[in-house]
């Protein structure tokens, strides 16, 4: 048991510094189908980077490569490199489990476990061996506060997370990811299935959180990218067409294809 715990993070670690993600000539294949072609980019720490582009352009594949969630899929292959804080995430010495604790992820369709709100948020701490209830209480409260959900649920922590509204469930998932004190948070279209009010809450949350961690968000919603991000990367058929400050991408895109996409001529 100790052997498996050692390579994980210390139980009571402090929040890490926001991480830096770097891709160098990163290409990715599902079987014979190439999904990403020579992507090179840097996501600076304490910023929000939006990945935009039409369906199937590879933006989700790129996002899911950062925490190696694509590992589950048989027949995948990559070339080039992806690194977190200068260390390759494909390094043989790097433990995928530890990587996924440093890089949290929130999905398009909220997916809380069929457990109580408390147990959902405490999950990451529990699998790291935290058993003291005072410590767990602290993790749960801190994470729910960071996810701007504490005041709404503090009186019903022991009830099922599935009884909450969609937007609240999604924020439970964000709190659950934050409980691990990640340095990077990956958001895969986190608001695409939510109503405008809940969407706004998520966007405000993203804005709050970027002071403490690095955020990469995949979105179909161009207004959302424009509102919530510092940098925007436009993907098209597996290639990174353009990356720049969000203002510049949306007002003075350098590439013709970017201009066509953001003005709605395709996609």
């Amino acid at each position, binding site marked *: 048991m100790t052997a*498996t715990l050692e390579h*994980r993070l210390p139980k009571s670690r402090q929040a890490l510094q926001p991480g830096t993600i770097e891709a160098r000539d990163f290409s990715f294949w599902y079987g014979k189908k190439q999904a990403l072609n020579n992507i090179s980019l840097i996501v600076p720490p304490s910023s929000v980077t939006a990945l935009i582009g039409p369906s199937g352009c590879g933006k989700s594949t790129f996002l899911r490569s950062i*925490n190696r*969630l694509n590992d*589950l899929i*048989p027949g995948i292959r990559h070339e080039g490199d992806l690194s977190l804080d200068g260390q390759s995430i494909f390094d043989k010495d790097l433990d995928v*489990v*530890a990587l*996924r*604790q440093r890089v*949290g*992820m929130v*999905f398009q*369709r909220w*997916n*809380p*476990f*069929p*457990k109580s709100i408390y147990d959902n948020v405490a*999950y*990451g701490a529990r*699998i*790291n061996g935290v058993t003291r209830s005072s410590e767990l209480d602290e993790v749960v409260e801190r994470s729910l506060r960071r996810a701007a959900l504490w005041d709404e649920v503090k009186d019903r922590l022991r*009830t*099922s997370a*599935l*009884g909450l509204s969609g937007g609240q469930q999604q924020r439970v*998932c964000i709190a*659950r*990811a934050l409980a*691990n004190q990640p340095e990077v948070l990956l958001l895969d279209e986190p608001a695409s299935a939510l109503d405008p009010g809940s969407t706004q809450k998520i966007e405000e949350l993203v804005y709050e959180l970027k002071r403490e961690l690095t955020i990469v968000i995949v979105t179909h919603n161009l207004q959302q990218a424009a509102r919530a991000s510092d940098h925007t990367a436009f993907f098209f058929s597996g290639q990174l067409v353009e990356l720049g400050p969000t203002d510049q991408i949306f007002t003075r895109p350098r590439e013709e294809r970017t201009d066509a996409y953001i003005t709605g001529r395709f996609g």
Partner: protein
Amino acid sequence: MTAIPADSAPKDRRRLAVHRVEIGDRIYEILTTACALVVPALVTAIAIAIFAAAWPALTKLSASIITSSDWDVGAGRFGAAPALFGTIVSSAVALVIATPLAIGVAIFLSEFSPRWLRQPVGFLVDLLAAVPSVVYGLWGIFVLIPMLREHVMPFLRDTLHLGATPFFSGAAYGPSMLAAGVILAIMALPYISAVSREVLLAVPRSQREAALALGATRWEMIRDAVVPYAKSGIIGGIMLGLGRALGETMAVTMVIGNRPEISASLFAPGYTMASLIANEFSEATSDLHLSALMAVGAVLFIITLIVNAIARWLVWQVSRERAI
């Protein structure tokens, strides 16, 4: 699939088609309703027949039929407590053995097995359910019982020193409650395993990804996200296996020893209600004897009803928890 625009057909022909569909719907509705009514009617008819036939014994013997251990046909005493005890214990032993094994098989097939192995292994496990029970009985007599007598029972009793407990003490004859439990475990296993496998495979990918993305290992993902999500279905599978074990007659009769005694030891021979009915029905001459056997059948019927009710209740509980 060539799409024909709806308005391309002449108007009157369309009306005719709608009319014909309505008649078809009506016939179909009547047919399926009739089919659906046949089943509950049949169950009710069987229940009425059993309880009517059991009535003389139930009024004459009342509760002694399940509380007394005295089964003396000549004296007109019919106490089936040992058979009731044997049915419950042999089924419980079967579940204790079969449940972990079946869930293990299901988890392997749904989570770890390479794709090419999933089909053949799953097929073989399912095949266990298709073997006739008399074949299991023969296998029990010629293979299982000698193996239990020569190796397993001495090992449990002497090597593991479990003989100190009442459950594994006494002489190892072979035909025993343990033999019946093992046979029933093999027979119940495919039911539990098949249902569990299906529900595990039905766990959404988003639940698996949620656990993995939080830094769970594969094992933690299965333990915390996959199995809890599938819990109600797995319980349903276990109850299906229990129903199978409770009612099984032939294989059990061949290996349990058919001795109407209550013993704490699993090494001792026993009896089950199903075996009792099967063994004595053809020789039952007096009306009371026949009625007593029917009463035993009625008790078995009620027990299986209760098991199914509990299963439904458990599944309902779990799914309700999830919905809150």
